[in-house]
């Protein structure tokens, strides 16, 4: 019959082991328990996979841009830069609040840290709200995945380059939005862990990693925004009706 070593498992109290070399010198053995550096390294590596994922999509996007430059510029001009730009500011500001929250946590201000996380969640929701307004407007202008304008071979069909532009636009902003939603979930979880005192000023790896995640999410947007919204000609308000 098996038994569990309850104490070692539950409390994660870890007494580092010592290895002794031939001269009798003692060396601390690194355990996996409470390995702050390891936790950081792991999450940085995970961020690399995200970069590769979005990188592949940027690669595809760049390839199609070289094939259909004019169409891309026209399609880009029809996006609403006020809304996109506003969202960029919102997201950058949320990165600031997230970072301040981590600083507060490290300095022992748990209450301030929680306030900052709530602010970040609020900003993330604003971002999603603006996104919803944008997509709805585009839908009403007949531009959405599955609508005639983005299908081939009918009277509303856009040229190839614009179909590809909008296909990638909805894919990439959609996947980015998905990351925002995941981020909100992570922050709510983080708040729960803080309330349960599992995340504390001395043990903040989870907070650190979620802040890192949020930085990546806004970093991706910083590339997505200019690539889709700013390459085109036309005035700043854009709007799909006025496409050239």
């Amino acid at each position: 019959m098996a038994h569990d070593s309850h104490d070692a498992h539950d409390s994660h109290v870890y007494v580092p082991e010592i290895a002794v070399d031939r001269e009798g010198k003692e060396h601390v053995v690194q355990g996996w328990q409470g390995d702050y550096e390891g936790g950081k390294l792991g999450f940085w590596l995970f961020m690399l996979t995200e970069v590769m994922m979005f990188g592949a999509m940027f690669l595809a996007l760049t390839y199609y841009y070289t094939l259909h430059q004019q169409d891309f510029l026209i399609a880009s001009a029809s996006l609403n830069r006020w809304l996109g730009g506003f969202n960029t500011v919102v997201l950058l500001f949320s990165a600031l609040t997230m970072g301040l929250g981590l600083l507060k946590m490290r300095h022992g201000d748990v209450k301030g840290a929680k306030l900052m996380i709530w602010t970040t969640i609020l900003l993330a929701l604003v971002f999603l709200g603006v996104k919803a307004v944008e997509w709805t407007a585009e839908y009403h202008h007949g531009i959405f995945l599955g609508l005639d304008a983005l299908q081939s071979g009918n009277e509303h069909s856009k040229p190839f380059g614009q179909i590809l532009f909008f296909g990638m636009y909805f894919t990439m902003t959609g996947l980015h939005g998905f990351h925002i939603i995941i981020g909100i979930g992570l922050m709510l979880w983080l708040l729960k862990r803080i309330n349960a005192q599992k995340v504390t000023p001395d043990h903040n790896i989870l907070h650190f990693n979620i802040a890192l995640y949020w930085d990546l999410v806004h970093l991706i947007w910083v590339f997505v925004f200019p690539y889709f919204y700013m390459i085109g000609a036309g005035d700043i308000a854009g709007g799909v009706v006025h496409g050239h």
Partner: protein
Amino acid sequence: MGKSYFDETHCAIGHPKSTFMQWMLTVDHKRIGIMYAVVMFTFFFVAVAAALTMRFELFSPGQQYIEAQTFNQAFTLHGVIMIFMFIIPGIPAVFGNIVMPLMIGAKDVSFPRLNWFTFWLYIFGCIVALTSLFNFNISEGEVLFKFADTGWTFYAPYSLNTDTNVITTLVAGFILGMASILTGLNFLVTIHRLRAPGMEFFKMPLFVWGIYATAWIQLLATPVVGITLVLAILEKYFGIGIFDPSKGGDPVLFQHLFWIYSHPAVYLMILPAFGIMSEIIPAFSRREIFGYRTIALSSASIAGIGYLVWGHHLYTSGMSDTAKVIFSFLTFFVAIPTGIKFYDWIATMYKGKIILATPMLWALGTIITFAVGGLTGVTIAMVGADIHLQDTYYTIAHFHYAMLGGVVFLLFAGMHYWFPLVFGKMYNETHAKIAFALNFIGFNVLWFPMFIAGYMGMPRRYFDYLPEFQIYHQISFIGALIFVTGLIYMFTVLIRATKNGKPCGPNPWNATTLEWHLPSSPPPLENHTKVPYVDFRPYEYHHGQPVVKFDENMRRID
């Protein structure tokens, strides 16, 4: 006799009393490795059955047992299972989990719970893949075999048009890819953080080097195929246009993105296998490995160069001539570090006291089969030759010589090498050697004729063929029967040994690396009770005897 990891375990959630739940929830890297092995080999035999079905069908020209469409689904099933469920988790999931932490003196991997989660993600991916097998038409009471018929590569635009269950298979591929990424991530952090004190990178056993190089490929290449599969799903559901020529999309882009991962993936499979070879050769030659650093660095450089050769899959798909030449050159270039390894292994054996135990037999067999697989790979890396051979049995034979004769043979070698470590018991060596002979002969009879058939123009993936190719298919068929017999024989020998094998102690092979210096056999739950200080190289032999010895507190006493 202390308790082993079979008697006690740590669990991800709670402290279940039942043995079954303790296995399901275990975070112990050794148990997780064993569970991977069980699931993987189950699927392996399913895929073998699919292959055998195709061999039966191909016994003579024309239709025998199955329809052409079923044949297409059979080779897709064979490919999807073998690639995504068997060989990609492969050696890292089994021996990376079981042995790597032991080799570096760690108590577990860096994130044991993530490891548990990863295993279940893998299972979930397998289940999703299984759901794509059939469509159930409840009202008509029909069960339709609707597995994808695209081949495991899912090339657009056909994969976008076929009405088989491609989407579920793509989802499964994505989930299995996630599992692979997380495994690699876990191992990278483990190798960076948890090495025993004193163990620098150049004091790690070479299997750990193989796992390390592999983990980087898992981490950096898998996301690319992950997103490619997602894009293909979005294309099929929403028509985003990216791979659809009727909307200006480029199907060849799918091939590029697919192979950016899937070519490095074959190095992901072979590098840990080379690592196993580098463990076995010195242990059974009783000699320090020749050119330790060159083997370690060649793993790293194969991982690096292997990232830049994907274009050789697209010679016939439409690509600029300049690109073809560059990809061809880079592909030749990969053969150099691989060749270095081979010469190092052979030089290690030179003047060694070679012991022909079963693991060594498998390793020596692999030197032959992988040499054939590797060198034929160089021939089809040439643009001109490849235009002729690309879609023929030649490529099939090359691939199976490299993957089955390389990766899987070395996986078997590792199974025989580490079996006594994992179970604390020894299998019957005589039977295991007979099984090896059957496998080795069967393998060559099965695949060698395909080189000739392919060279003469037998196209791959065909349901039917011209009568002049019949003789090759029939020889292959006989080889397949011998090979399958050998496989069943081998697994019977090993499975019986888990029950009836003789206890063999912690170090039956007299090997030098740390996993053979555990306090008991099978190992206890948290591995080394005392972690040694590593101020020695991994394979130090003098006059055929291990140099480094430890007392019961793992302090050196030599």
